[in-house]
């Protein structure tokens, strides 16, 4: 072969390599612009679902602004303090938005914010998060902040994706926001005058507040001292500034009164507008007080004006929040929680059991009463804290807009679906009638049953953990459900083998020492279900579910309606309706083991289609007397409505369990509370108080017994809530992101066999194949040699 010189060869090689690399880069750039994707996963986990594609196609000019910190951190600490790798998260967010854009048929534009992104994002109501990088500033550590989110703009409306740290949730969140944005714009016309009245009021308050802020900016006088107090000089200077600018302030605030009047003319038409009016009214009244204080001659009153300005700034913040709430309200459907029949009602109730002004008087009559009132206040705080936490964390932070529904009044039109969660006692006939008519009017109802009060090991009023037994609750919702083809059968489902464990608090004694510990016991009354209706998005992605204290359902089909069983027990399950059924874990296991299976039982089902009225052929029950009736001011009107329906299209979902969320409310804890008994000086109040305290402790004990089952159940609860407001599309997307693929349950011996087979067996198998190959080759060679030597002999 001809040799080339190093120079020529080097030049040639360099040219070829550079050309190849350039071509490769160009090909990659072109491929980056013209790309295609195929999702191989069975549930199309990485592809936008049809619902998401439809959602983005519903806009004619959607603008998206991305807020992504350029120097995204490598890792952050999550809520549990664990490091979370963030490397590809920003790219995943961009990719997901890009995917939506590709389905938007050119009607979606995406731009990325630049400049001070964190500051801009905060202004757009995005949430910043801290990385692990920190700098020392004025003696304290300041963690660097980052943002990852987007705003979606359509016409005059906007939705915010505040923080996108979890790629697996992107599709659910973005589609939810797009659906919401579309609804908001579509329904804005229906309440145009309310929105413009609200906007005018908001602008009037902001203009007034700005005039106040501009009149005496806090930075001009050095501001407050480190304790937040103003020195006399500074205070005087500020008051002087307000007095000088009084006419400008008055001019800026002139718009407040007419805007308030216009809004008040529409009061009662929308709860969000009412809240805004309430806050704006408070602003107007405070402003009037401020003007009076400023005009006063006494120095003390003038000082008061400064405090009133602080109040005005704070109220303005509330007004802005309420105005935003109103602007967001068109088309918003909330989920109504029925607060009746001792059902779970996740709303704090701030009304004190004992009016504060009465407490000192009670103390004079009965020295114990004052202590009891104090303790009741603490218990009330605890209940409100729990309920507030549930409302905020379990529902609102997950994007559910929930509302308290009083069935004695008409169901508000903003309620998209009703939930009756674990009612323990009976609803009134009128409440049942309201529910009946709501469903027949096309509404959705989700019912979580709570058939039995199961006391595995409850605390007695004396503080002993000896109260045990089961009692049937007196809820009558089953009568209504039976009319629609889903009748609770009255028994609790017990699974012989497929059951969860119960956490039991027990006291361990060793010599003089005694301590409390939690022990777990297999418990048939906590059945685990695997048989889910795969055609229903409500349960198809849930591999297994533990439904504590669950009641079986008897389903009846009828022409025009579709009854669908969602979850079934095994055939070996039992139905327990004997109050003497053993609750002690070992005894329960023994009893269940010897019994014959009676299953399968359906424990969750839906019914849709034409449903008959439970009150067909009967007189409509009268509405309860309103407060005015007590005073003899008005007579109760019968609840016979002209639009009364004897049948109608509705949808109902029934779950035979309360998912382990025992109802908590002041009504259930302070059962039998009577203010009069407290005031009459009776010492029986002590016994009653002990009972109430035990009620609260028992709620906590019961929750701790089955708390471990809640995680999977909450997923199911969210699906049910989405179903209630007819957002099955979101249920589908949620189901997709939470696909679980559990393994067969194997004992440790079987697991060890598989481990050995995989780690040793697979390599040995390959060696065996090699040895067989070797033997074959040797045999072939031997035969070849033999034939050759035989041939040569011949």
């Amino acid at each position: 072969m001809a040799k080339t010189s190093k120079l020529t060869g080097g030049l040639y090689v360099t040219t070829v390599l550079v050309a190849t690399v350039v071509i490769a880069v160009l090909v990659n750039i072109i491929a980056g612009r013209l790309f295609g994707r195929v999702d191989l996963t069975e549930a199309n986990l990485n592809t936008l679902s049809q619902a998401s594609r439809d959602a983005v196609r519903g806009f004619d000019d959607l603008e998206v602004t991305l807020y992504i910190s350029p120097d995204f951190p490598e890792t952050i600490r999550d809520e549990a303090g664990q490091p979370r790798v963030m490397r590809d998260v920003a790219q995943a967010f961009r990719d997901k938005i890009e995917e939506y854009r590709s389905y938007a048929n050119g009607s979606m534009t995406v731009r990325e914010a630049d400049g001070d992104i964190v500051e801009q994002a905060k202004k757009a109501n995005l949430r910043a998060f801290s990385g692990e990088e920190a700098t020392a500033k004025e003696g304290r550590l300041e963690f660097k902040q980052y943002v990852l989110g987007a705003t979606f703009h359509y016409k005059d409306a906007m939705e915010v994706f505040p923080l996108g740290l979890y790629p697996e949730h992107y599709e659910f969140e973005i589609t939810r926001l797009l659906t919401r944005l579309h609804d908001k714009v579509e329904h804005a016309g229906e309440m145009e005058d309310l929105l413009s009245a609200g906007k005018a009021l908001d602008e009037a308050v902001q203009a007034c507040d700005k005039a106040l802020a501009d009149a005496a900016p806090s930075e001009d006088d050095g501001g407050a001292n480190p304790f937040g107090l103003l020195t006399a000089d500074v205070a005087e200077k500020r008051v002087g500034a307000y007095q000088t600018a009084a006419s400008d302030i008055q001019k800026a605030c002139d718009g407040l009164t007419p805007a308030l009047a216009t809004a008040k003319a529409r009061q009662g038409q929308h709860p969000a507008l009412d809240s805004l009016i309430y806050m704006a009214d408070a602003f107007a009244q405070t402003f009037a007080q401020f003007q009076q204080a400023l005009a006063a001659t006494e120095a003390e009153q003038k000082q008061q004006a400064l405090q009133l300005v602080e109040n005005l700034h704070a109220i303005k913040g509330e007004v802005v929040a309420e105005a935003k709430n109103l602007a967001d309200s068109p088309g918003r459907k909330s989920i109504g929680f029925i607060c009746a029949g001792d059902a779970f009602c996740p709303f704090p109730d701030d009304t004190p059991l004992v009016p504060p002004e009465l407490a000192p008087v009670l103390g004079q009559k009965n020295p114990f009463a004052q202590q009891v009132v104090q303790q009741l206040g603490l218990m009330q705080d605890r209940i409100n804290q729990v309920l507030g936490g549930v409302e905020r964390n379990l529902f609102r932070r997950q994007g559910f807009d929930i509302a308290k529904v009083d069935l004695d009044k008409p169901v508000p039109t903003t309620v998209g679906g009703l939930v009756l969660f674990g009612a323990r006692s009976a609803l009134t006939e009128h409440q049942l009638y309201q529910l009946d008519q709501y469903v027949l009017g096309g509404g959705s109802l989700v019912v979580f049953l709570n058939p039995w009060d199961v006391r595995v090991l409850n605390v007695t009023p004396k503080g002993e953990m000896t109260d045990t037994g089961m009692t049937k609750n007196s809820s009558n919702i089953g009568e209504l459900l039976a009319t629609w083809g889903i009748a609770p059968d009255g028994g609790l489902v017990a699974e012989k083998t497929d059951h969860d464990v119960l956490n039991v608090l027990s006291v361990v004694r060793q010599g003089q020492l005694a301590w409390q510990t939690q022990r777990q016991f297999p418990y048939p009354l906590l059945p685990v279900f695997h048989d889910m209706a795969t055609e229903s998005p409500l349960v198809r992605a849930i591999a297994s579910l533990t439904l504590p204290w669950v009641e079986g359902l008897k389903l009846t089909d009828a022409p025009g309606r579709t009854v669908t069983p969602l979850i079934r027990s095994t055939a070996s399950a039992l139905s327990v309706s004997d109050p003497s059924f053993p609750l002690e874990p070992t005894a329960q296991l023994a009893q269940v083991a010897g019994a014959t299976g009676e299953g399968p039982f359906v424990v969750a089902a839906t019914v849709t289609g034409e449903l008959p009225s439970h009150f067909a052929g009967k007189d409509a029950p009268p509405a309860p007397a309103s407060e005015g009736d007590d005073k003899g001011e008005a007579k109760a009107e019968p609840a016979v409505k002209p639009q009364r329906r004897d049948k109608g299209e509705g949808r109902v979902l029934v779950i035979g369990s309360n998912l382990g969320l025992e109802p908590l409310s002041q009504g259930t804890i302070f059962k039998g509370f009577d203010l009069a008994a407290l005031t009459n000086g009776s010492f029986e109040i002590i016994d009653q108080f002990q009972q109430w305290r035990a009620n609260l402790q028992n709620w906590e004990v019961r929750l701790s017994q089955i708390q471990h089952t809640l995680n999977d159940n909450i997923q199911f609860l969210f699906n049910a809530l989405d179903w209630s407001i007819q957002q099955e599309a979101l249920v589908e997307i949620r189901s997709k992101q939470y696909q679980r693929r559990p393994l067969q349950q194997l004992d440790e011996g079987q697991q060890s066999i598989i481990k050995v087979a995989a780690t040793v067996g697979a390599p040995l198998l390959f060696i065996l194949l090699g040895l067989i190959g070797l033997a074959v080759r040797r045999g072939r060679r031997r035969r070849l040699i033999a034939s050759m030597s035989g041939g040569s002999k011949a």
Partner: protein
Amino acid sequence: MADAVRNVSAIAKRELAFYFGSPIAYVAVTVFLAICGVYLFVVYDFFDGNQATIRPLIEQIPLFFILYIPAVTMRLLSEEKRAGTIELLVTWPVTDTQIVVGKYLGALGILAVTLVMSLVFPLIVGSLGDLDGGLVAGGYLGLFLLGAAYAAMGLLTSTWTQNQIIAFILAVLLCTFFYAIDTMVGSVWESARDAFAALSMKAHFANIARGVIDTRDLVFYATFIVVSLVAAVQSLQTRNWK
């Protein structure tokens, strides 16, 4: 053209015959399978996760490949150079390109056999639960592409030296560099990380491993392999320089 195909195929078969005619392939594949099994069932503790998935293993194999593939490719041309058989090879009517492609296909054969043998893990997991077949298919395609890119780099380094160990070490360094280039560059030059992510094997593998076949990733691997093989051909031709 037909001659070229015949030549390439002859060289590839010769390579495969060498590997499987000696204990090399059996030892390598056996060790690889044992490591995978230990990782999935002991280190990762598969049963504790209670999920019918082999994604943790698929995400780990690229790291195992950083040692495995260079071990397979280190002798491809360096051994020929050391033994002088490269000169014998070029006396055949074959071009340098055909030699490189033939050798490369031989290495891909080993890679394919390795991956086929490792299918035993998805089979075991599939027998224990509902395994997502699409995810496995995507994962294996990703592993094949990644392994092919490593093999191209391994082949390239084996053209640089007569010493197999040096070829192995260089290939390991090169594979590691291109696997985590974004992380490595990002740790010293934060703002350049995103730019270098486009060259990162790991970033492109992540998409495929979650079951998404994206043409951008396929093009990346294809161009990476082509550039490496062109470089290998050019490197081989340097022996003709005066």
